[in-house]
């Protein structure tokens, strides 16, 4: 049952929210031992919240558009009094003193949090294997990764533990796991969703967004979490999007560009698998059949995205993660001086990938290398912004694959960091320029696992993106073979 059907059944009193929660908690109980989507299941609090929703309905109040809908929250978003770990040992024992704005907003809309989901430590990774609490498995094939870093949030929805979840996306961490798990995953425009209470990774790139099985559920959840928040100074001062009302408008007359450099075109990024490119071309044909005009376009600097990202994101991370020093929260490893305590705490608390990125970022920002690396990466962002702007003068949206391949086997890419990083090659450009992008399932690969295709648009083009995403969903070839 979709989130929207559940909410309408709860609002009308046809189903009790407690029943709905119990049904989902039972599924979690039965299967999360295998999947490991959750770091923490908040069963008691969920039942209490659901009972309050039922009481509201009984007394004639409207508990909101997501009434009684179970939702899973990535464990890098603050939840008052509920452990928030970022899947890191360094936040051991920490309970945030406040809620992230998105958590407040989903609760205000009537949704019920069922737990906190696993991630690559501090959201650094593309497979959810860099977690201090063990990897999450892909519910469609448990020998495969669910993608990352929001792999727990993706797996929770794919395994029917909750119809909705929230993830965060710094370089593809919502869209790539959505593609790997056969889901819809959206990274909104930078500033469209408050980051207040999201534990920072790369502050100029991070954005929170929804996971769901359908485009309509995704639209409803983004409507609930979007809109201005005075607690986030990078929040865009405008009301939440109206998305659910545009879903049936179709793509007649829309102009959609296949972004050559990220879609297997000549001179573009290499390593995209043939089945993924084929599904992307089929998606383009489907949009054309539905009335859109499809043309090939070029953003040459998109090929530089991966390099720019792996300088900018670690640089910002090295600065953001300096706050984890054993003084104010989380882990402390005792030592005789404060400096030694900080070094001992960070050394024991951070995992290998986090250390690698802190090292890379510290190096890229250090004297003598700043201009050659970080400074140039920032100029590449400008070039990308300019090139995207000229392309969006010609077309409304862009189409690319979401990830180079379908979900890969657990353990397949952990030995060499670069083989993991290339997963983000198609998703990174949207983060560097702050633009919105959605991944929509479109058929399966040669291995029978889902393929995701990505629609990109200019800043604040969410309504257009959702309009086209709904058309793409309607034209997609059946269900993934394993879902």
């Amino acid at each position: 049952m979709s989130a929207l059907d559940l909410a309408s059944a709860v609002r009308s009193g046809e189903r009790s929210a407690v029943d709905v929660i119990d049904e989902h908690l039972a599924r979690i109980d039965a299967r999360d031992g295998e999947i490991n989507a959750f770091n923490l299941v908040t069963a008691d609090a969920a039942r209490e919240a659901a009972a309050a929703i039922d009481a509201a309905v009984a007394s004639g109040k409207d508990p909101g558009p997501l009434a009684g809908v179970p939702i899973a929250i990535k464990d890098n978003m603050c939840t008052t009094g509920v452990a928030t770990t970022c899947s890191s040992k360094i936040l051991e024992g920490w309970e945030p003193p406040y809620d992230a704005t998105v958590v407040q907003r989903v609760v205000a809309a009537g949704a019920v949090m069922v737990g906190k989901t696993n991630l690559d430590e501090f959201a650094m990774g593309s497979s959810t294997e860099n977690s201090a609490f063990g990897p999450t498995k892909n519910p469609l094939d448990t020998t495969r990764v669910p993608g990352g870093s929001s792999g727990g949030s993706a797996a929770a929805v794919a395994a029917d533990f909750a119809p909705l979840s929230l993830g965060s996306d710094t370089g593809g961490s919502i869209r790539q796991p959505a593609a790997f798990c056969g889901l819809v995953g959206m990274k909104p425009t930078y500033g469209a969703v408050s980051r207040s209470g999201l534990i920072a990774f790369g502050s100029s790139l991070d954005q929170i967004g929804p996971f769901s099985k359908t485009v309509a559920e995704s639209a409803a959840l983004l409507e609930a979490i979007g809109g201005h928040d005075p607690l986030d100074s990078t929040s865009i001062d405008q009301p939440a999007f109206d998305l659910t009302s545009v879903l049936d408008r179709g793509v007649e007359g829309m102009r959609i560009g296949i972004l050559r450099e990220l879609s297997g075109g000549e001179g573009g990024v290499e390593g995209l698998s043939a089945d993924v490119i084929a599904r992307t071309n089929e998606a383009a044909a489907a949009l054309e059949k539905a009335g859109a005009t499809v043309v090939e376009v070029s953003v040459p600097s998109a090929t530089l995205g991966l390099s720019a990202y792996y300088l900018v994101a670690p640089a910002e991370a090295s600065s953001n993660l300096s706050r984890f020093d054993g003084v104010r929260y989380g882990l402390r490893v005792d030592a005789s001086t404060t400096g030694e305590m900080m070094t001992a705490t960070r050394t024991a608390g951070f995992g290998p990938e986090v250390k690698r990125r802190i090292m890379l970022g510290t190096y890229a920002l250090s004297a003598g290398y700043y201009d050659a690396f970080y400074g140039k990466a920032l100029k590449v962002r400008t070039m990308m912004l300019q090139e995207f702007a000229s392309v969006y003068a010609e077309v409304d949206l862009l189409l690319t694959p979401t990830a180079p391949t379908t979900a890969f086997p657990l353990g397949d890419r952990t030995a060499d960091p670069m083989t993991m990083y290339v997963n983000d090659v198609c998703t990174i450009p949207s983060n560097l320029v702050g633009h919105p992008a959605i991944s929509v399932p479109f058929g399966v690969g040669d291995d029978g696992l889902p393929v995701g295709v990505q629609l990109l648009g200019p800043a604040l083009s969410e309504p257009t993106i959702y309009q086209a995403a709904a058309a793409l969903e309607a034209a997609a070839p059946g269900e993934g073979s394993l879902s």
Partner: protein
Amino acid sequence: MEWSGAVSLGAMTQRITRDEVVHVARLARLSLSDAEIDEFTGQLGDILEHAADIEALDVGDVEPTSHPLPMVNVLRPDELRPALDRDLLLSQAPDAEDGQFRVPPILGEEP
């Protein structure tokens, strides 16, 4: 899987050295074992080699973009508003005393 950009890759003039890795770890307040230093020297070198396309790029007088939104000086009204409770925050600290965070001695340390 190989990744390469459309722009020609200029060769890095030199790879990151073991001594630089040791220096950067100290800056980042991380203590690395000899094996980790070797591993990071290789891996960071590989990652930076991929960034050689950026290092080699002639970006001329392109302005840097540190932030995707053209926002400046976001202000709020200068009004009192509730803050988080001090005792609640200190309850989350590894060590606290007299309303403050408590840490081991600082004086006498090397900077």
